[in-house]
């Protein structure tokens, strides 16, 4: 009887640990997918991934170098979407993505490489830098709370 109880308990522990690992992997997959969607959004001047994956709340701030967007609408309407016409092209790469998950909060760090051409001036830019993403789980889905990017001319 004792052996049976011990085996049952060990099995439940293994199942629970396995389930936790799978849940953690799913969280990482979801967050990675969101980051790729953000890349798509920036490259195509498309606000839809931002409206889908960002938590729209009063007090939201998105930092880029020495500036910020105040709120999700400001980010989409005054930054993401206008770049579609302002730039001939924009290539944005996130690499070396590191994801940290703590219950209902997650943060991700990435190396960035961004290249583009300004339509009006014809100037091109080629920069490398870093990005910080902060996430919160809301009703089972990860949502972006805050982003912070910075870069400098490629050396």
């Amino acid at each position, binding site marked *: 009887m004792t052996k049976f109880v011990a085996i049952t308990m060990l099995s439940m522990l293994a199942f629970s640990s396995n389930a936790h690992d799978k849940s953690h992997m799913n969280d990482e997959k979801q967050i990675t997918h969101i980051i790729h969607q953000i890349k798509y959004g920036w490259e195509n001047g498309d606000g839809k991934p931002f409206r889908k994956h960002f938590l729209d709340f009063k*007090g939201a*701030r998105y*930092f*880029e*170098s*020495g*500036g*910020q967007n105040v709120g999700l609408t400001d980010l989409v309407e005054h930054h993401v979407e206008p770049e579609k016409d302002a730039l001939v092209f924009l290539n944005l790469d996130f690499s070396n993505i*590191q994801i*940290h998950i*703590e*219950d*209902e*909060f997650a*943060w991700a*760090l990435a190396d960035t490489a961004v290249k583009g051409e300004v339509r009006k001036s014809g100037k091109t830019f080629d920069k*490398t*830098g*870093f990005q*910080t993403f*902060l996430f*919160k789980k809301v009703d089972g889905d990860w949502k972006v*709370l*805050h982003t*912070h*990017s*910075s*870069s*400098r001319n490629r050396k």
Partner: protein
Amino acid sequence: MGHALQTGDKELARAQLASDVMIYEGGRVERSADEYAHHHMLSDMKYLAAMKSETLEHQVTILGNTAISASRSHTKGTYKGKERNYQGMETMVLEKQNGKWKIKHIHWSH
């Protein structure tokens, strides 16, 4: 942390950091508290001692054993003969370790 850097308190600054803190600053990355303490912390302290910095906005959110801080500041002064006057942004992630908050990540930019 800001106070420790501005006043040149190396011990206090180091004590705020988790040992595996990741710091993004000026296009560079430091991947541990020791790396930051041995490389750029001293130059950051010298720089900030010469500057006047005013916090414009600061938001802190606590989610369980994690906290996030996002702030914007205005910094001005003269350093090595150059006048500086700019808006700076700071994002931090903190984690409660053994009852004490430790900084796990800092992203500074301007």
